[in-house]
């Protein structure tokens, strides 16, 4: 099911949670609503679900205006942040709930329900847990049961509120991969909310970055990472060096990284560490950069370059990244003077 939001606004008292949001999501996407806490992402998800009513604007599902439809008639499945499993029901009864509350003419027989629930439990790989109660499950198991329960009513859109928020780091990693696989298998349009950019980049096919109730950018993870539309997105998605036009030396830049037009005084370049390539300097007179330190991050090395003139938030340091192998070939030592070459930069005023 495709989703279209038109001019959605929502206020809580005097606080504007969402300001005139417009968003289109194509059928079958796996979308991350990404942003810092308080940016309005959960409110947006709840508005799509019909758990919250927007002050103005329209929610179109498959081109039909469903703004005034009740949550139960929108064809959505919602996975709550803290799962909201019914504590007094077994896992089986939890998953069966949505089927059992259907009006009698649509309600499957008990045998069909049993079969359906079993297949859903198999889908989430927890078929042996049917008779347990939610309190007896681990966080990751509860999460998957909540998903199975939402899927039982065959929703056309799956909405997940911080699906990995309450889980341990290792479980989170596994579940991310699992959610991706599941999405590929079911191909149901899915939207999840997260504040973790790494999670959004790893899982989603489309990322929507929200900030202060506005959509800052929408695009594929690669788009958003390489071509952030503004300084907020650039800083929020991954590490970046922020250098002003004054700080940069012309010889570091080539055509691809030069600003398109003559930059103003306030112009700054956002440069991802992997877009800075480092070479040993031929002579240490014509470069201000020296090696301060480095860290091994597995396959790549992060190098800290000392740049005394620079006055940045994190000190007079520029970060560069390169493959570990390449670093070994260069035989760099602390204090060595280096020359850099910037392959790509995003310019903002």
């Amino acid at each position, binding site marked *: 099911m495709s989703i279209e939001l038109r001019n959605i606004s929502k206020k809580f008292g005097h606080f504007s949670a969402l300001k005139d949001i417009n968003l289109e999501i194509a059928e079958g996407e796996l979308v991350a609503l990404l942003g810092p806490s308080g940016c309005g992402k959960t409110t947006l998800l709840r508005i799509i679900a*019909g758990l919250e009513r927007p002050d103005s604007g329209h929610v179109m599902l498959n081109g039909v205006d469903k703004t005034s439809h009740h*949550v*139960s008639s929108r064809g959505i499945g*919602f996975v709550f*942040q803290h799962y909201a499993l*019914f504590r007094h029901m077994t896992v089986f009864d939890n998953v069966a709930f949505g089927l059992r509350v259907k009006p009698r003419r649509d309600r499957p027989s008990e045998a069909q329900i049993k079969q359906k629930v079993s297949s859903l439990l198999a889908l989430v790989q927890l078929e042996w847990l049917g008779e347990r109660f939610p309190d007896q499950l681990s966080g990751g198991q509860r999460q998957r049961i909540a998903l199975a329960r939402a899927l*039982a*009513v065959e929703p056309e859109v799956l909405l997940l509120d911080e699906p990995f928020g309450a889980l341990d780091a290792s479980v989170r990693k596994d579940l991310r991969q699992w959610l991706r696989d599941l999405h590929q298998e079911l191909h149901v349009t899915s939207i999840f909310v997260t504040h973790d950019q790494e999670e959004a980049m790893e899982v989603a096919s489309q990322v929507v970055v929200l900030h202060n109730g506005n959509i800052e950018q929408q695009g594929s993870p690669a788009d958003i990472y390489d071509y952030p539309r503004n300084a907020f997105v650039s800083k929020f998605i991954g590490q970046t060096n922020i250098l002003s036009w004054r700080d940069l030396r012309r010889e570091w830049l080539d055509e691809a990284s030069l600003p398109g037009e003559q930059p103003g005084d306030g112009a700054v370049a956002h440069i991802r560490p992997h877009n800075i390539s480092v070479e040993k300097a031929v002579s240490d007179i014509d470069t201000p950069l020296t090696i301060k330190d480095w860290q091994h991050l597995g396959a790549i090395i992060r190098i800290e370059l000392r740049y005394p003139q620079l006055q940045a938030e994190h000190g007079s340091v520029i970060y560069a990244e390169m493959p570990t192998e390449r670093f070994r070939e260069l035989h760099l030592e602390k204090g060595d003077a280096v020359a850099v070459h910037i392959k790509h930069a995003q310019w903002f005023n």
Partner: protein
Amino acid sequence: MLKPISAMSAGSLQALNDPAWVRWSLIGFAFAFIALFLCAPLGLVLYQALAKGWDAYLNALTHPDALAALRLTLVVALITVPLNTVFGIAAAWAITRFEFPGKSLLETLIDLPFSVSPVISGLIFVLMFGSQGWFGEWLSAQHIKIIFATPGIVIATLFITFPFVARELIPLMQEMGNEEEEAALSLGASGWRTFFQVTLPNIKWALLYGVLLCNARAMGEFGAVSVVSGHIRGLTNTLPLHIEVCYNDYDAVGAFASASILAGLAVVTLILKTLLEWKQSRA
């Protein structure tokens, strides 16, 4: 709770342990106080009730006035407890599931009967329905008797026990949040179905607990009821009032026989309460 033994034995943290003499004197004091103030009264009720033997006890209990008082007490509880239970559920639902202006005022007003003296709670109904009250003349013209009759006792008890169920449910439902209910609604359940299948199972022990306290107070209320009842023997005396009448007549066995029933009710209430708290903590 208590520190683990390992923490106690660690030399530097010895200060976390109260000295033995302090510990024992405090424990001794607490036990003495509980024994003297709480256990002794319970024991005394039984002792006094049976002071002249079983026959006298049973005679006192089966005295027509005592039976009438018991019957009236049950009738009052049977009417007031269900009404206040329905109210408590509705109020808790409105307050914990919705935002609306004046919500905290409403909560304060619900608690109001707790902070009004029982005597005043009775007085206000005398002022409304008594012979000189607002509706006094009209009522006597219609030959309806509220004050010095059962309806007055019921209304005064309604007032006194008004907050009990709501008070138990509101904090619990607030803490539970409404995610489970939203989940049920998003899965297509109707409002009633959501209430009966999702909300009610989650609050049932607290609800029972509130009903229990409401009932104990409804059966045991003295001050308010004493003001509106008129103390007509065999007609408008509830059990607590019957105790007073017997006591003032120097009929100790009669007073304590009725008291033993109410004390039994209190003990049962406490046992059930402990059980329910245990259930709720596991739910």
